[in-house]
């Protein structure tokens, strides 16, 4: 009997301990919030940040330390920053859970093109249009963080300007220059083949790689012939059959002249193959530069726009932004959060941060020296040969990746792929009404 009582007591103890844990938590957050509300008058503020880039922890920590010092000196606010850096794989899951459970971090990082539309619609993004940093953003960068109704809702950190990569050494050897039309591209591949070089590296194991052809094709068409394409698709009025030749003419050309076993080659293997000179061109952006240079530090490569038809005006560099910082509208320390955002594009300190993280310049205050391939892409942008990454829903991009893989493996026809894309966009419209 006595032992039974013990057993019951044990259980109760466990239960109390569990309960204790949870009540402790609430107390903690409560305290932090209390400190937050009194922030502007008193002096201590806890700022929660959520940036899914653990590889840059050191750089962020340093920059935050500078910010804390500055805030103390200028506004007499003691800022404590809780920086959370989950890995990129599950970051968006964690962030979504936080937002849905009303536990939003004050500042969080999200993917500009993929995530801003749905997050903005759900009301999780603060309107930043009036902030001083907005006027510093480059015109080529700003559209990617602007919503359809014209509000700037995030600060871009990582931006991309890309087309395809080409091996400058091989091009120079045969006196070739990056082609501006599809016919010229054909001529280039013929010449390379005649000299026993494989024109293209193919790496289609991961479905996001064949997918890359879609933003390039749609971007080029929207700037030249079909400006309303995305709008039409969003209204269920368009169809991908309009893009048929833009996508498949160049995709077929690449596939016919590429390396073998494409469905078994992933991104890293592709980078190694390109670095080893197994192909002269690779449909890929400069984000693989580090991997390429790791396997061949001497490789001389460049970025050029991909021709999709015989109109040279449709041969364009794609501009987009990925990691961007946003502020939560429910933040209790909005003032300090906005201060931090503006400090990220600070006139003096910002250069060092962006250079340390090897990001492209996003603002007029960035004056550091760029990598040669970035400079090359930027020169196209300056010449007006660029287009904003078209706002294609992520689910459609996933679908096109899978579709083009299956097309390459001979399991789907061109029409099957296009039909699947139309369906994916329709169901996106249905879900996001």
């Amino acid at each position, binding site marked *: *009997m006595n*032992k*039974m009582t013990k057993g019951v007591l044990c259980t109760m103890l466990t239960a109390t301990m569990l309960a204790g844990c949870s009540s402790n938590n609430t107390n903690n957050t409560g305290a932090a919030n209390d400190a937050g509300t009194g922030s502007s008058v008193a002096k201590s503020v806890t700022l929660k940040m959520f940036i899914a880039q653990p590889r840059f922890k050191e750089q962020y920590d340093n920059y935050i330390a500078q910010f804390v010092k500055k805030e103390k000196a200028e506004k007499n606010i003691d800022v404590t920053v809780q920086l959370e850096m989950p890995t990129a794989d599950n970051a968006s899951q964690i962030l979504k859970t936080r937002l*849905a459970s009303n536990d939003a971090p004050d500042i969080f990082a999200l993917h500009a093109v993929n995530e801003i539309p*749905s997050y903005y619609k759900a009301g999780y993004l603060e309107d930043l249009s009036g902030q001083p940093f907005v006027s510093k953003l480059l015109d080529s960068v700003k559209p990617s963080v602007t919503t359809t109704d014209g509000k700037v809702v995030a600060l871009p950190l990582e931006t991309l300007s890309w087309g395809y990569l080409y091996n400058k050494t091989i091009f120079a050897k045969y006196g070739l220059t990056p082609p501006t039309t599809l016919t010229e591209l054909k001529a280039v591949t013929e010449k390379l083949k005649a000299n026993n070089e494989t024109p293209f590296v193919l790496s289609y194991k991961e479905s996001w790689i064949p997918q890359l052809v879609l933003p390039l094709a749609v971007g080029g068409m929207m700037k030249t012939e079909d400006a309303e394409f995305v709008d039409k698709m969003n209204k269920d009025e368009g169809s991908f059959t309009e893009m048929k030749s833009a996508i498949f003419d160049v995709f077929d050309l690449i596939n016919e002249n590429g390396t073998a076993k494409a*469905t078994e080659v992933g991104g890293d293997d592709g980078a190694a193959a390109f670095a080893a000179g197994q192909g002269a061109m690779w449909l890929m952006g400069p984000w693989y530069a580090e991997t390429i240079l790791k396997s061949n530090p001497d490789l001389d490569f460049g970025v050029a726009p991909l021709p999709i038809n015989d109109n040279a005006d449709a041969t364009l560099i794609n501009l987009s932004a990925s990691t961007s910082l946003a502020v939560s509208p429910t933040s209790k320390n909005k003032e300090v959060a906005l201060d931090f955002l503006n400090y990220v594009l600070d006139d003096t300190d910002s250069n060092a941060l962006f250079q340390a993280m090897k990001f492209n310049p996003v603002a007029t205050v960035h004056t550091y020296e760029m990598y040669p391939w970035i400079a090359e892409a930027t020169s196209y942008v300056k010449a007006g040969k660029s287009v904003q990454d078209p706002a294609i829903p992520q689910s459609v991009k996933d*679908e096109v990746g899978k579709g083009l893989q*299956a097309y390459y493996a001979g399991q789907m026809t061109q029409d099957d792929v296009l039909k699947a894309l139309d369906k994916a966009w329709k169901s996106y419209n249905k*879900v996001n009404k």
Partner: protein
Amino acid sequence: MDEQGGAACSPPSLIYFAHHRGRGAEPVPVNRYKHVVSLLAFVAPAFIIYSLFLLIPTIGGMYYSFTDWNGLNRDYSFIGLGNFVEALREDPDFVNSLLFTLKYVLFMIVLQNVFALVLAVFIETKTRTKGFFRTIFFMPNMISTIISAFMWTFVFSQVLPQLAEKTAISFLDQLWIGDPKVSFYSIIIVSLWNGVGYMMIIYLAALQGVPQSLKEAAVIDGASPFQTFRKVTLPMITHAVTICLFLTLNGAFKVFEVVYGLTGGGPGRSTQVITMNIYEEAFSNNFRYGYASAKSVILFIFILLFTFIQIGVMKRKEVEA
């Protein structure tokens, strides 16, 4: 700690219970009540954890399967059976992945158990090297599935083509994981490599439990080794067959890592299994959590049905020594 307390505690209370029962009818309800309370008290810690982390989320998932929640918005609406109808009627990818999974399950149930049983029987006949072979064949099971999938990716895409080049066996040089026709068998190979060891251990244990006297009696009656196996050993290990079939069936329906690591469901969706289809729906397409939950419920019902049938059939065949 709780388990210890339980072991030390319940016998006295049972004695107490038994002791008092003899005295008359009157105290029994009180004691029975106490007995129930003590039972609940010991089950409670495990049950609380279990319901907190498994039961409640499961029920939550079933609830969401009737909604159109996207995992992000604060509001969502109740749409009844709409998700289930869409999954089975208008979603060819889901149906294809379901069929692909069924094919996989069929292959796995037969091959995994046949291989495991054959290995177990052979290892059982060895007396000296038994431990060695047992360890060797069990080893792949200790490597996590996803790692073995990545290892085999390397073998399929790098090692075998190189071997083909060196030995001129052209059969080895093909698209092991890039060609949808071949990749199904590559997936089976890796799954078997990973899973046979575990089933083999179960069969080994069962084989050791077969009474020697029965086998000897069969031999004296003039039975051949195969007849002995067929008529004596096999019926005696039916309980192990039941468990192994159950485990294989369950595991094969839920396969994910092997396919994810080897082909990623590709090229296209040609090797997409049902779990992967659900994952894609919930986390990468349109984030349709409600719809993905409905697909999970369908998978759950499938596994439940198949398992019930399998256990029901097998239970009738079991015999006692």
